[in-house]
């Protein structure tokens, strides 16, 4: 239920695996971690939301912020997300047009045509 964050490297991508509830209480920790990654030089970032149980607008704001930060630095942010309730939130907020959404970490890393949307 609480936030879990773990980072690994796959090919030239930094994969941040997120679990639990990303909400007004935990979003600051997600923001911090994403800023650390970009400050540390990560440019191809994949955020794996596969284990996220709840995501609120504060969490969406943090993801949008990371997207902008990476774009400004010449990088990209990709999201991995398959759970229908989460996809619905991206659709409602039109963020499915902003983010590159993938079914799996591998397809996100490959940047291939396997996008969920």
């Amino acid at each position: 239920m609480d936030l879990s964050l773990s980072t690994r490297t796959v090919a030239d991508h930094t994969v941040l695996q997120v679990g639990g509830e990303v909400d007004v209480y935990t979003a600051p920790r997600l923001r911090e971690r994403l800023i650390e990654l970009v400050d540390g030089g990560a440019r191809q970032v994949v955020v794996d939301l596969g284990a996220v149980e709840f995501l609120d607008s504060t969490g969406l704001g943090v993801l949008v912020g990371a997207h902008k930060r990476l774009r400004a630095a010449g990088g990209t942010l990709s999201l991995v997300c398959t759970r229908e309730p989460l996809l619905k939130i991206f659709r409602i907020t039109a963020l499915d047009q902003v983010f590159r959404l993938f079914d799996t970490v591998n397809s996100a890393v490959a940047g291939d045509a396997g996008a969920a949307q």
Partner: protein
Amino acid sequence: MPTVRLSFTPAPVHVRTARLVGVAVARRAGVAEELLDEVRQAIGEACSRAVALHLRYGLSDLVLMEMSDTPEYAVRVTDRAPVIEAVRNLPDADVLGISPDGEPADGLSEEAVAAGMALALLTALVDDLQVRPAAEGPGTEVRMTWPVWRPTR
């Protein structure tokens, strides 16, 4: 009169308690299981919006959430922030901050983006949403309802 009333200091951690209570009371009131995710999301958005407003204005007043279960499940979240803010935050394309090319407007802070998303989610998830000045004193109330299913016994 509300069936259950929850008040909490404007701290992010208590929004989790509010979601928990709101969903538990909804379930017991007879809201359909498949609506409970939406109830959780909408209550979370309404309460985190109220907490954010109190924090921005330095208000230590409690945020109030009232739930009643007759004739339908109704939730009212009341904040104490100046009303002008609530009105400015009503959803429109600008506040949502998505430009025509599908990119978030550059000038917006994460907080502003989140506020826009919160209202987009509330309007989309709640069929019957009312946002209006609080009955007494400063503040805004967000009122949401969901149908309940009553077994015939």
